[in-house]
């Protein structure tokens, strides 16, 4: 069992299998398409969460502006979909047919240059990765090379989120303004709106999510993953062991940005629109809260956090719309004060040992084989 002993340890393997069973089997079988589509929407934040686990949990770099990258990825995808929806036949009532409707409303008569690449799906996919990646590279280089970190960095990412929102809202003719990009219809001629398409997109997203989980786990297990942890504790020691701390921070920040952007692109596809309300300060902070609730040191925790907090959000805001923000705030305070490692910490501290004991008691032999390598809990077999 190479996977068991190397890539995932036992509890991670259980987490992986449980999550795969939930997302691939249980939820699609038990939920109607509307609810499944909601789950798809929640899971787009799980991509952001995985990035935050690497960047914040491991690297200690708190970014309160992940909405920026979520938004950039989402807008790249939405621009492609919007262009396809704005074909000449679809828009023949406009004064300039063939450009998106909001441009026509704003007296723009030709497609701006920066929109041109989004005619091509290949270039769009590249842009989803490269635009946020390069943007993170620029911010990261500017900040980390100057040794700006901690709270200052978090505040600057907030400022960037605010600036980008203002820019998108202000440049209505180019971005769709406060309404965002709506009425997205087809992907390469394939209608993304009907139920069967939503189910397909859900599965596509879950596949991508597992791809990202595996990539994040791979990074975590390399020496780079250990350097991130080392950096969080003793930045100077890493520096005086011959590493450029700034470069490692930039890498972690860029990876987090790219994960967030993939989430954003999936959001545009699954939800069918993109707007500045997913870019700004408040959504960025909410994304951090999902990760904190799930456990910032756990890749699976981030996925569970995004799912559960959003389920609670939908449930609460359906019945008590006013209460949700207080609920979210209270949840964050509770997690920070009582459970700094979130749900995954609670799992590892309270649930896992009980399961271990139960398994050891009932099936002594396999339990012994599992605990071979590690110290484990040492519960007696009899």
């Amino acid at each position: 069992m190479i996977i068991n002993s190397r890539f995932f340890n036992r509890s991670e393997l259980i987490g992986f299998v449980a999550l795969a069973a939930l997302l691939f089997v249980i939820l699609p079988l038990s939920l109607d398409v509307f609810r499944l589509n909601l789950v798809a929407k929640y899971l787009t934040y799980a991509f952001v969460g995985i990035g935050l686990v690497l960047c914040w949990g491991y690297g200690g770099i708190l970014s309160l502006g992940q909405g920026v990258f979520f938004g950039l990825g989402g807008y790249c995808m939405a621009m492609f979909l919007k262009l396809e929806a704005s074909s000449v036949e679809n828009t023949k009532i406009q004064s300039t047919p063939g450009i998106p409707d909001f441009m026509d409303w704003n007296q723009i008569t030709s497609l701006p240059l920066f929109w041109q690449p989004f005619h091509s799906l290949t270039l769009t996919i590249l842009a989803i990765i490269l635009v946020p990646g390069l943007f993170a590279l620029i911010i990261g280089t500017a900040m980390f090379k100057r040794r700006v970190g901690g709270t200052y960095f978090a505040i600057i990412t907030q400022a960037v989120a605010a600036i980008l929102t203002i820019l998108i809202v202000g440049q209505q003719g180019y971005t769709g303004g406060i309404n965002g990009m709506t009425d997205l219809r087809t992907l390469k001629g394939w209608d993304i709106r009907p139920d069967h398409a939503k189910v397909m997109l859900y599965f596509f997203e879950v596949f991508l999510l597992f791809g990202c989980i595996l990539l994040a786990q791979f990074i975590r297990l390399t020496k780079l993953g250990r350097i991130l942890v080392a950096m969080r504790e003793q930045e100077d020691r890493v520096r005086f062991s011959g590493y450029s701390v700034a470069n490692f921070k930039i890498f972690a920040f860029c990876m987090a940005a790219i994960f967030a952007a993939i989430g954003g692109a999936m959001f545009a596809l699954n939800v069918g629109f993109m707007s500045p309300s997913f870019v700004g300060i408040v959504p960025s902070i909410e994304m951090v809260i999902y990760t904190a609730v799930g456990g910032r040191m756990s890749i699976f925790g981030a996925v569970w956090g995004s799912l559960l907090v959003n389920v609670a959000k939908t449930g609460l805001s359906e019945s008590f719309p006013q209460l949700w923000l207080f609920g979210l705030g209270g949840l964050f305070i509770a997690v920070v004060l009582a459970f700094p490692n979130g749900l995954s910490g609670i799992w590892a501290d309270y649930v896992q040992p009980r399961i271990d004991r139960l398994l050891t008691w009932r099936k002594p032999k396999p339990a012994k084989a599992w605990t071979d390598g590690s110290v484990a809990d040492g519960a007696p077999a009899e």
Partner: protein
Amino acid sequence: MLIGHQPKEFLLAVEALTVSFDGFKAVNDLSFYVEENEIRVIIGPNGAGKTTVLDLICGKTKATSGSIQFRGQELTRMKENQIVQTGVGRKFQTPSVFVDLTVFENLEISYPRGRTVFGSLAFQRDAAVRDRVEEVAEMIFLKDRLDTYADELSHGQKQWLEIGMLLIQDPDLLMLDEPVAGMSVSERAKTAELLNRIIKGRSVLVIEHDMKFVEDIAHKVTVLHQGRILSEGTMEHVKNDPKVIEVYLGH
């Protein structure tokens, strides 16, 4: 500047080094030279600028003026990690190890390979790494603690681990800031034994207050006082220097 005047055999040449913090000159027009395989001890009263000198050499603090040449390369213009890569290792006064990583992982991070972002992604824990880590772990008395998290080590063991992390870098110049401070008597003896073993084949710059320890290891002693050199020479010479007795040893 003065580079042309210096003979080549100096490993480290510090010349006219000055650093001022808001007008206060912590190190003032300091010059000294360390040869290959020399053990140099820096002593001096508190606030003499000893730690600052090490900070300047390893790049933690930027010099206001002056030059630090290591094997002919100017260190004052380099970044910390580049200085490490030219062969300068630094141990801090308080043990700075990675407490959330195991002893093995701590040593592995210091192994001089795969130090770039993508290098560290591709880094493989192969036999060469494992052997070297085990070899160093044995030297620093932590061979049977390889899987222990550094958090669980005693103060003395953490100091050894940090020395081990330097050792695995195999620096040409090893800088140690009070390596035996805060250690128990038995740990102190073991550390002295360890240091005596690892200083062979490289130059060492040590800050230490323990006079017996200094006498044991020093080839040459530099006495700092208020950022300047008060006296320099063999331990015998320094001990009998009236200026030194007045400001330091006499107290």
